[in-house]
């Protein structure tokens, strides 16, 4: 047992990947099921805030792009569920965990999308933050997860660019349109910073996750990377990031930024965000209303098989 675990760690330290049939510590398996399924649930629930605006997109160009983006998110959810299933959990069990509220998903999707500008801010900031995390995860130790991440990263870049283009168009528009863009940035900025998770000092999973190459950078490192990349992008738009403490720190070579409201973060994680109940009930409704389709497809397949065998 001891030596199996040592051999496993040596493999990871040597930069090798772990594949589904390889021996792995039970905790590695469990941590991956939790993390990959949370990631999958986030893709699936993440379709809801944007789905809200598909029918009200301001032009056909925007509408086809948003549709394609939401369809991608369904695809990303499926890649990730498949990766989780290689660890010995079934798709139905994963859905059950989401629908019962047992599993978590990214808290950002518990905020409402109040204006069209939010489609811009989500693509720019939320997908931007997700990309930073996902690029790191292409080098994660579990093979199926890393491969899913490679596919997702390839596709995700369009998401961020279409979002930024929406922001840019609004910022070059009327005063009211620019205000919509600023209002949207004001609402999405802090939740986007929270996407990287609690600060390193209190993050319970970080140390073991780094050792097993489930993570390669800490929450705070990734958050800093996001701020450094995003501030100049806001300047191009001519928008103001809603943080009076934000300023370039010459000595560190990074932007300093203000204190994040972690009480708000934990409130949303615990289910008390503005849309937690709405999101979960939408997912449950879709699952329950789709039950007859799933059953009919199985019945049809069985019937076809039995007629073939005659």
């Amino acid at each position: 047992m001891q030596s199996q675990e040592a051999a496993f760690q040596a493999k990871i330290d040597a930069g090798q990947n772990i594949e589904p049939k390889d021996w792995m510590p039970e905790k590695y398996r469990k941590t991956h099921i939790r993390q990959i399924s949370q990631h999958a649930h986030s893709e699936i629930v993440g379709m809801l805030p944007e789905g809200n605006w598909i029918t009200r997109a301001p032009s056909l160009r925007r509408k086809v792009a948003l549709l394609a983006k939401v369809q991608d998110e369904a695809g990303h959810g499926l890649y990730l569920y498949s990766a989780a299933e290689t660890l010995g959990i079934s798709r139905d069990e994963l859905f059950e965990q989401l629908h019962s509220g047992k599993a978590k998903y990214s808290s950002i999707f518990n905020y409402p999308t109040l204006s069209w500008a939010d489609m811009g801010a989500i693509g720019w900031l939320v997908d931007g933050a997700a990309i930073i995390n996902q690029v790191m995860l292409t080098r994660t130790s579990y093979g199926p997860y890393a491969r899913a991440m490679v596919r997702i990263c390839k596709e995700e870049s369009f998401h961020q660019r279409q979002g930024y283009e929406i922001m840019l168009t609004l910022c070059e528009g009327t005063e009211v349109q620019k205000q919509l863009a600023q209002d949207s940035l004001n609402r999405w900025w802090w939740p986007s910073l929270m996407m990287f998770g609690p600060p390193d000092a209190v993050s319970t999973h970080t140390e073991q996750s780094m050792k097993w190459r489930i993570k390669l950078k800490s929450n705070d490192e990734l958050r800093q990377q996001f701020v450094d990349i995003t501030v100049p992008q806001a300047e191009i738009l001519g928008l103001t990031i809603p943080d009076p403490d934000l300023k370039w720190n010459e000595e560190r070579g990074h932007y300093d930024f203000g204190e994040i409201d972690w009480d708000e973060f934990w409130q949303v994680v615990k289910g008390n965000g503005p849309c937690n109940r709405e999101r979960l009930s939408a997912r449950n409704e879709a699952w329950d209303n789709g039950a007859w389709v799933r059953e009919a497809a199985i019945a049809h397949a069985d019937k076809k098989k039995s007629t073939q065998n005659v």
Partner: protein
Amino acid sequence: MNKKEWPIWEVFVRSKNGLEHRHVGSLHAADAEMAMENARDVYTRRSEGVSIWVVESKHILASNPENSGELFEPAKDKVYRHPTFYDLPEELKHM
């Protein structure tokens, strides 16, 4: 939860003629036709392929890593199967 789940299928895509099919991932579907349609939507949304194979996962026998020794070790000491094993003069060309 007691309801029957759709079986898992493995998906292989040929990106262009002249190249082999490669495993790209898996999905759930009630039957082969649905697996093909879902594979089209899930794995070739951006012209990633010109041909798709789907096969129900239960039909694949995967080697067990615990047997890697007996399966793959024997090839390791057979260096004479590689061209670099043979000592030939420098001036020899086209070989």
